[in-house]
């Protein structure tokens, strides 16, 4: 027989009348018990008021997102025995960022609104719709599209993203993955408009890989954002952010192309302009750091290798 053991489940509960409070439950579990089953047991056997979302219990529907021991996870994809600590305890809380509605149920409207902003649907060519032309797709193109389409709208990445919290103009990781999925789809006819929707927002991502880390589907939204940024040179439009990003990035590319390294003082000047750079210099002087800003590193000696690598533009 499979060995059972008693675990303690601490849930941060919430309702409008009582506000937030913690409640503990004891549950029998074995090595096969998913956290969604733990919740179902509590609800049907101990506390019917316990509220949470759950549907497929196989990590394809994205309902049961929550914080398990502080970590953003799907409850169904978390086995009770791996979740518990040495005291056989596990803590469950509603996801960060979203407004709480009830116990482990947050209001996810803000997540959905971000998704809708990227017009998440294919606009096929009329001749394909009518059947005059058949649209083909290479296996590698399908792979790329599917990678980012595998998102299950669970909202974990947005709840964990530091930029989303600070910057309402940032569409967030999931919406970027979704947007890029259509950019990468040769069957779509709105690629330019899509780049227009995504480009400014892409430069609001910090590339911190938090979304990559918490995604239960391995969608890697940050990679979609990076791939979107790569279109910055062919995108005709601009915004304040994009202008700065272009200056900054082209200076880096230039610097690497010339010396094989980044020369920060030059980068500073070119990106932020003379006035802002001087202001920052003042701060650095006060910190006693200015001597480093002036330091000069040697260039790469074998620049031929670097030039060959940098050489042919994409």
């Amino acid at each position, binding site marked *: 027989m499979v060995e059972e053991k008693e675990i303690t489940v601490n849930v941060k509960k919430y309702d409008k*009348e009582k506000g937030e409070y913690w409640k503990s439950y004891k549950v029998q579990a074995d090595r096969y018990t*998913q956290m969604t089953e733990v919740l179902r047991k509590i609800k049907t056997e101990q506390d019917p008021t316990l509220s949470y*979302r759950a549907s497929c219990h196989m990590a*394809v529907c994205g*309902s049961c997102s929550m914080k398990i021991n502080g970590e953003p996870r799907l409850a169904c994809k978390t086995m009770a025995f791996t979740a518990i600590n040495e005291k056989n305890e596990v803590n469950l809380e509603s996801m960060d960022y979203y407004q709480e509605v009830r116990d482990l149920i947050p209001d996810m409207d803000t997540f959905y609104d971000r998704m809708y902003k990227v017009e998440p649907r294919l606009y096929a060519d009329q001749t394909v719709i009518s059947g005059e032309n058949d649209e083909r797709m290479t296996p590698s193109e399908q792979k790329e599209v599917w990678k980012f389409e595998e998102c299950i709208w669970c909202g974990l990445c947005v709840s964990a993203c530091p930029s989303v919290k600070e910057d309402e103009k940032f569409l967030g990781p999931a919406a970027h993955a979704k947007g890029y999925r259509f950019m990468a789809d040769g069957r779509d006819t709105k690629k330019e408009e899509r780049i227009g929707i995504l480009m400014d927002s892409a430069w609001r991502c910090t590339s911190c890989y938090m979304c990559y880390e918490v995604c239960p589907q391995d969608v890697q939204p940050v990679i979609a954002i990076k791939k979107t940024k790569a279109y910055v040179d062919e995108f005709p439009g601009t915004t304040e952010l994009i202008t700065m990003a272009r200056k900054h990035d082209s200076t880096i590319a230039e610097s690497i192309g010339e010396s094989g390294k980044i020369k920060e003082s030059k980068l500073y000047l070119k990106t932020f302009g003379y006035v802002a750079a001087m202001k920052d210099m003042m701060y650095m002087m006060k910190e006693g750091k200015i001597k480093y800003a002036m330091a000069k590193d040697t260039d790469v000696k074998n620049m031929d290798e670097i030039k060959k690598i940098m050489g042919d533009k994409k």
Partner: protein
Amino acid sequence: MEKKEYDAVVLGGGLAGLMAANNVADAGFKVAVVSKVFPTRSHSAAAEGGIAAYVDGNSDPNDDPEFMSYDEVKGGDYLVDQNAAELLSRDSGEIVHILDTWGAPFNRQPDGRIALRYFGGQTYPRTRFVADKTGMALLHTLFQHATGFDNIDFYNEYYVLDIVKDGNNVNGLVAMEMKTMDPIFLKSRALLIASGGLGMIYQHTTNSYINTGDGYGIALRSGVPLKDPEFVQFHPTGLYPSDILISEAARAEGGILKNNKGERFMAKYAPHKFDLAPRDIVSRSMTIEMREGRGFEGGYLGLDLTHLGREYILERLTLAYDAAKTFANVDATKEMIPVRPAQHYFMGGIDVDITGVNSDLNGLFAAGEAACVSVHGANRLGSNSLLETLVYGKETGKTMVDFLKKHKNVESSDGVDTIVDNAYSYIKRETGEHFGTLLNELRDVMWENVGIFRDEKKLTEAVKQINSIRKRSINMYVTDKTTNYNTEVFNALETRNMIDCSIVMATAALNRTETRGAHFRDDYPTRDDDNWMKHSIAYLNGDAVEIKYKPVIVTKWKPEPRVY
């Protein structure tokens, strides 16, 4: 109470509901899609293996839609309405084309055409797929497409209470916003029930927690019958012990079922099709193996993929691999996956004809697993559930458009308050039985007595016990009195629906004294075409289940013995 008026209300945001909604909206009508979950959480997402289709120019050169229909008819043990099976095959290619133009990311062949593979019961390979998350990929495709319509309003996380009728006409439905617990009257002359299945009635099921037969429940309470409710599919490969589905794709791609002696036992039961025989046959064979002591301790058999090679498994069977790894701690590239049969699909459903129309209530339509057309008869073939949701979602959408053009919304709002009062009665009550107790008992009875092997004794006992549970359920009460997202209220209402479905299913199973497809009677082990080649049409009148019959529509294929 808030009231909103629409041309059509669609209950359910899964594939069938969304397909119909897309069609009705495309014709310019105003549609409300009501779902107790955000649409991408619907159970359609859990369909793994693929969608069967005959695509002109991209099918086996020897294949033909006729063969496909024949496979369905035979697979369904001749309880299939053959005109429905023919429509399903005929329109399958068009569905794939539509999905392609809506952005479905089907796996591709090297030349860029959509890839295909074999599934159980198929004479030629017909299954189109997106890795092994086909349902999820298609659900997202349809939902995303639907969000492009201004004339579709989504009522996500709204729980349906009951159908509003005006005489014998549909007048919409009453639902409750789960977040605020406010009821809303969604008024319309057409109602499509596309709310999926009822797996949670069974102790072991591959279904989502949300599959609680809500659509069947509200239909039965409105005097609408279920067709063939005795037919329940048990999938051979539920992962042990969590019952998570291991897709038929695993066997389609070469996986082999083995008993504790390492024998490929399906050779004995299906000498031609082996592990890819229809699901009812494989599930029964597995149960026999385990009964006769050739299962593993704990009650499971092995699904062996190891000979397929790591790379192939990781690429084509990602979900099966991940599920085994995550939920059973088994590395499918190195060891057998522990599996056992679990409830998977309800062949029965709201009685509709080939156009999606129910003849008991004007303006009522049904599609997908909620409906019984019937294309699956006594046993559904793999890859046909996705296909059915889309072909019949579309077909029903067309019928609804015709209906909407001919009819106007009625004026009345009668009966709305009673519906709300009934639902509130559970909250108002201060004592009684708790939904969890009743539900756990119900799930046991259904699994033990209305499961894979049935007989008169078991079924009589089931009817008795379910009736008793049903009586007790009148005194069901809800401890949670709060007014925001009170899930206990909804669980109680779901339990009411599940109990109503169960009594109808058990009674119809007791009534059908033959073995056909998934309905296997130990006491009547053979098919009886003389007496039983007919559909059960089961009504729930108060406490009584009343069963009538409809003939099976035969166009081309006379019944033959079903050998695989």
